């Protein structure tokens, strides 16, 4: 069970790490990556719940495992949609920014001022 607890702790660390990346990284692509890190951390925590539910001859509870498999596929679908949105934004405007004031000012003004 030591390795299961350890995997749960990595999961906790990954959620924190991903959250930090999501907040501090200004690029949308990096935010999508960070969001995926959070997701995989949450999945790992499901993994420890599955492992601690080992019973009836199964090494891990199959229900959380099935939920994680579904989750991985849905996370991929969400990432694909997010990336398509970012690419379209880039094609339309020539830049990728999430700054709320970026679209009210002309581009030359918005890039330099802090």
């Amino acid at each position, binding site marked *: 069970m030591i390795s299961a*607890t350890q995997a749960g702790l990595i999961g906790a660390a990954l959620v924190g790490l991903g959250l930090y990346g999501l907040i501090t990284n200004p690029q949308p692509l990096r935010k999508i990556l960070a969001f995926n890190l959070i997701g995989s951390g949450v999945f790992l925590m499901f993994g420890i719940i599955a492992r*601690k539910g080992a019973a009836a001859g199964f090494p891990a509870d199959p229900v959380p495992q099935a939920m994680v498999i579904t989750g991985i596929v849905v996370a991929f679908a969400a990432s694909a949609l997010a990336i398509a949105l970012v690419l379209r934004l880039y094609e339309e405007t020539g830049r990728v920014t999430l700054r709320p004031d970026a679209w009210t000012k002309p581009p030359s003004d918005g890039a330099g001022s802090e």
Partner: protein
Amino acid sequence: MSVLLALDIGLALLVFAVAARTVFARGAFEAVVDYVAYGLLLSIVWVRLFAVDVALTEAAIGGGVTGVLLVGAAARLRGAETVAAEESPSASLRVVAACLCLLVTAVLAGVVLLLPYPGPTLAPESARHLAETGLGNPVTAVLIAYRGIDTMLEKVVLVLAVVGVWSLAPDRFWGGAPGEARAAQPEPTLAFLAQVLPPIGILVGVHVFWAGADEPGGAFQGGAILAAMWMILMMARLTEAPPISALWLRLLLVAGPVVFLAAGVAGAVIAGGFFAYPPGLAKPLILFIETFMTLTIAVTLPILVAGPPRREPVE
């Protein structure tokens, strides 16, 4: 045991280090490459948790297919990186964010350490009814039988994602083919790989799907391997992404959820419950549904990676 423990700790540190590189890497491209390595390492962690089905899915979809998607996006967005670099948050914001994230991690770690053992589990329940489904793999039984509606709705999510991605196409490209997510001139190595690998890959993909009834594997993992084979062929320019107006493509994209939903409704009439399977016929029915789901996954993943159409339809 002590050797395994040392390996586990080493693996944990490695996963964390690669994840940290994903967040702190300078360029988006480096971050993406780190993320692919991270996905593969994570699948080893899943093997250590005795969740081989999840490990296969993570390696194929979390690492592989997502990796192709991200590498393509990072290459296209290269021009946007320098502009975005000027928007970096201030040091004080970074400190506040770090404190917040440490707090979240500490709370989650506390929860992990306080989890009861043995924990609440549905394993005995799923073992009890496994014989009725005719399956040997309890995870497949949960996915297709016990919680069939979740899996069906997840397929609907994939279809919705395709609709969302396609709807980002400019009007004039509607009905056309997605642009190429590959270099103009394919590497000779890639072309060679694309000729050698698919026959083996298709065999492995179909085997993983078929074996999934009793062993680790199933529709998701097998479908993802088939999807990868199609993606290799498209990357090596041996085949083109189909135009989104192609009827066969649209039929394949919805085949999985439609067949699954039809089986669910038929269950309400024949077997006395929505998504119930008639006794004795469960296993053939499950394999029938899974066949269409595998096809749908094999088509949906490359279509999502290919993105919205970028060429005008050829009439």
